[in-house]
């Protein structure tokens, strides 16, 4: 039993490595105060972007300086290089969303949205570092509760409807997860799931209650990453929330969920010793997720709803990396996550732009837009190609890497389910083309219904340049994936 003094000094020592999060918390408080004092939303926006940049920089520095994994706060958190890297990705996501929110009327009209988004980011930070079930639960709630509120930010009928459904569905999912946790705690007597005794205890537990508990526990994580069967909230929430919020939902919580799922998957798999074939189970879930995501996207008329299903399908692709269980697969997942963040936020920025300027939401309403917004149109085409995973974009490289690691996993284990997943995933890539290219098709090959004098009209908007930078990065990641891979290769996923 450590003495009180030891415990207090542990807290102080941990606080040193907790800089980015402390910064975040102070930033949240600052934003609340600024919101109360300043009327103009511009200042809030500026402060938010600054804060996001600062957090990004501190996280990046932390990652760079980190040598060995550090346990923080009585081993509640484990700051290792994957966690540090994931935090950077989440920060990038939030920074981009903050920039994008510059055009989001609903977010700007209520200053509370900014602290809420940063709270969500804080939850993400804690979740990627979590090594304790309690922190997993708390940080998932810390992500969820701001999400429920943000989903309602249109404050119209559809907005609050989607919020209430999201809330009830999320509450049930987290209750299921909690119940699973209570059983797991029963078996292990320990909340710290990266300790060897935790794994030992799980190995000794009776298989039937263990299975029940693990699956219940998984449901909460599947909810966060929007995988089948906990994906149903996504289309409704995406359709009715402000677009900037959708961009946020589709990236930050999902990626944080993936990082913890990747960690947790190793635990429930008991590092390969489990008598239950979790790899196959998750592979089947991934296949169904791909199937439902892609096939349902085919028939959607609303662009945001289509992108919701597309993000479900991307969940399936990222799960491919998780079931491949290898260090390289984790790296490839990381690559995928980075590219996914960039392209998803970029495409939502343009969707938001057109929604704002032209008040259009449906794919067929995009007809002829390339003549009014030639630059925007070209960017959308590139982004859709990237989302579909075609060359020459980073989306292609990401898919290629993920499937490479899946193939290696199959080659190593000879598990036929992985082979089916491999072929099924490839097939789905082809299918996904049809809906991704629907919007470009309407933009290019259909005349506008109100042919005004276009062309002379110069539509110079900052979004074009913002997205252009993102697109250039995406293209760059195709031609020079090593530039990112070299950075990722420094992450030690040893666990």
């Amino acid at each position, binding site marked *: 039993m450590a003495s009180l003094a030891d415990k207090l000094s542990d807290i102080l020592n941990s606080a040193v490595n907790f800089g980015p999060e402390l910064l975040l918390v102070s930033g949240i408080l600052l934003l609340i105060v600024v919101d109360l004092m300043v009327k103009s939303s511009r200042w809030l926006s500026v402060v938010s972007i600054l804060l996001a940049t600062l957090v990004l920089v501190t996280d990046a520095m932390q990652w760079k300086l980190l040598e060995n994994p550090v346990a923080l706060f009585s081993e509640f958190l484990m700051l290792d290089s994957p966690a540090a890297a994931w935090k950077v990705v989440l920060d990038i996501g939030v920074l981009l969303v903050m920039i994008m929110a510059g055009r989001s009327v609903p977010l700007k009209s209520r200053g509370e949205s900014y602290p809420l988004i940063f709270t969500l980011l804080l939850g993400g930070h804690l979740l990627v570092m979590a090594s304790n079930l309690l922190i997993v639960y708390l940080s998932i709630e810390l992500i969820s509760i701001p999400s429920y509120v943000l989903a309602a930010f249109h404050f119209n009928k559809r907005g609050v409807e989607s919020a*209430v*459904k999201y809330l*009830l*569905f999320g509450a*049930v*999912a987290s209750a*299921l997860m909690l119940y699973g946790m209570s059983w797991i705690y029963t078996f292990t007597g320990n909340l710290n799931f990266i300790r060897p005794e935790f794994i030992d205890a799980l190995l000794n537990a009776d298989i*039937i209650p263990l*299975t*029940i508990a693990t*699956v*219940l526990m998984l*449901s909460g994580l599947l909810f966060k990453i929007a995988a*089948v*069967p*906990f994906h*149903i*909230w996504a289309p409704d929430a995406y359709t009715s929330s402000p677009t900037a919020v959708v961009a946020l939902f589709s990236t930050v919580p999902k990626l944080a969920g993936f990082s913890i799922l990747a960690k947790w998957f190793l635990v429930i798999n008991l590092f390969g010793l489990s008598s*239950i074939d979790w790899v196959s*189970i998750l592979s089947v879930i991934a296949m169904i997720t791909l*199937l*439902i995501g892609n*096939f*349902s996207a*085919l*028939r*959607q008329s609303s662009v945001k709803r289509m992108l919701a299903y597309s993000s479900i399908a991307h969940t399936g692709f990222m799960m491919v990396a998780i079931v491949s269980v290898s260090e*390289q697969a984790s*790296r*490839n997942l990381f690559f995928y996550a980075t590219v996914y963040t960039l392209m998803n936020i970029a495409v939502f920025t343009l969707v938001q732009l057109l929604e704002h300027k032209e008040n259009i939401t449906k794919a067929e309403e995009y007809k002829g837009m390339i003549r009014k917004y030639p630059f925007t149109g070209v960017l959308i085409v590139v982004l859709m190609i990237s989302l579909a995973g*075609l*060359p*020459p974009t980073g989306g*292609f*490289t990401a898919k*290629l*890497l993920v499937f*490479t*690691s899946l*193939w*290696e996993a199959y*080659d190593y284990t000879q598990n036929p389910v992985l082979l089916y997943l*491999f*072929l099924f995933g*490839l*097939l789905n*890539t*082809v299918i996904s*083309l*049809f809906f991704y*290219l629907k919007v470009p*098709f309407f933009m*290019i*090959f*259909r*005349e506008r219904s109100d042919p005004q004098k276009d062309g002379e009209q110069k539509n110079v908007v900052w979004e074009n340049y913002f997205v252009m930078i993102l697109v250039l990065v995406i293209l760059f990641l195709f031609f*020079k*994936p*090593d530039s990112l*891979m070299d950075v990722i290769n420094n992450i030690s996923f040893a666990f």
Partner: protein
Amino acid sequence: MLAYSPLYLPWTSVTLLSVVILVLPFTSFLLNTLVTNRYARQASIASCFFMVLSSFISVVILLDVMKGVPHHSRFIWFSAGTIDFTAGLLAGTAAMLLTVTVNVVSLLVHLYSLVYMRDDEGYKRYYSFLGLFTFSMLGIVLADNLLIIFMFWELVGLSSYLLIGHWYTKEAAARAARKAFIVNRIGDAGFIIGMSVLWMQFQTLDIEMLKVAMGQSYVNDGLWITGLGHTLELKWLTLMGLGLFLGAVGKSAQFPLQVWLPDAMEGPTPVSALIHAATMVAAGVFFMGRVFVLLNVEVLSVIAIIGSITAFMGAVAALAQHDIKKVLAYSTISQLGYMFIGVGTGAMDLALFHLFTHAFFKAALFLAAGSVIFGLHELAHQKKLSFDTQDMRNMGGLRSKMPLTFAIYSISTLALMGVPMFSGFLSKDALLSASVGWAMTLSESGMVWSYIVPILAFLTVALTAFYMIRQVLLVFFGRFRAAEKMEGIMESPMLIKVPLIILAVMSIGFVWSLNPFDYNTSWFLDVISVPDMVTPGVDLAIKFEIVKASGQYHILVSVASVLLVILGGALAWYRFKPNTSYLAEYLSDKASSPMSRLSLNNWYLDEAYQRVIVLPVNLISRSASRVETNVIDRAVNVVGIVNVLIAYIIGWLDRNIIDGIINFSVFFVDKVGVIAKSFQRGKIHGYIILSVLCILLIILLIL
């Protein structure tokens, strides 16, 4: 893990020059995209110069590689774990020949379009997409790696999609573009499957490396084992070949995916000449050449049969078309079928030979057809007439007004029919001989079905002669039918004539062989040779037998094919020569026998696909989304049925025990109301039920 890893190969002057060839069209694409509309004309002229330069460089390189040494450069693109992804450039003889062809035809199309597309409002866009297309086509040709080829393959698909849909305001053009795109996707699925099997087995997609690796692999006890010990079942080898072939089927419009090519004629005519005659459709054949050594016997047989079926079906479909370009489109399909016969019978060199001869005379035909359309269009414009300028029923007698176009059309027609002294005769004769030799050899080992290939090929010769003579007669002979007088029609301007003349010259037999009656003397076949098959299970001895047999029957084949040409041509002359009653009937739409309807509608393939594929797919995707959104309602149906059932049972008890029929009716109506109400219900409950149910099911499945 052991893996085949391709080595780094440094850049050489030749490969760097090849990069320049790639860069020039891409620059043209960028230039035409970026300039403002004011300078569109200048930009397009600059593009023509780029193409001149590019053609010149490619000829220089061709002369260099014809000495026999291919140039290959390769660098490591990126690595994932232990695996290196490479990319590189391979300038071999076949590749450079095709590079020259692509560049030259593209140059001629660039020049031709300066006039043809002069007044089009999408002029700038048109030139920029031409540049993009040329760039991506050259990419396919020069890449050394299946993955890179696939990328350019996609890019070719994209740019052809954009070019077909050039006149996107026409509903038909937009639909044709989409159709081409979708059909090509099916082919891509095959390509991906083929690539993934190769990847599974060898962990590399570098073609040179694959050749080595494939040569080291062997078959043992139904298993396909690589030199490094990776094992797959033998069926994967066949599946790989079929997958790659499916990719080629999509691009080269072979049965059963040929439906997109006729519709693609909605694009501008020069585009049809470039894409749908000379280059893009040839990509499939060329690609088969690249992976030829990886194919096994089963796949080759499938290729031969598909090729012959396509050749025949395409020729039949060309018989009764009204549209001048559609005849040529179906003819292209049919000729591509010939090339695949060549691939399938192992005569890869002959297939490439036909590819090149065909590229020139078909481009000439398309551009000449464009000249005709252009002339009629000018007429319609001047006289304010409105008629379909592509419908041959509106043409006739143009010989006198467009003598040069007529001459060129005739030359290329003779080449296409395979008349001696013209290029088509050489290559077609060679392919026919090869198919005969193949069938003879195979039938010796009991495979009599193989005769289907030469039989269909020979039938196609007669059909080809028929539809081409018919077309020439309808367009250039007889009386002009669209208007009273044909005064407005004039020969096209110089910029259109020059490309036509160049292409026509390339259709003369002497250009290709000193002795225009014997393909064996062709310089082309000296520089191109069939790559040695390395696939396990291929018996090289059979190949020699095939070659021997084709040599034996060569004279017989030539005579037979000439006779068939005369037969077909004579039949067409008899029917469509000016002032026959049949012609009159045809023009008044009375001669529509079931046979000609079958031909006109391309064997009703579109309709069949509509029924067999499109409708079910619609059904599936509709029900997928319905299940997704309404799955709960389905569950409610079940609940409703259970409710009715319970209601019925209770009702039955009611009726029997309390003797209350009236009571029952009241009860029943009440229940029906409840059921009806239960349909309009909050989905959220259903969502939660469904999710929890899935979780329970997963648990039960595990236990």
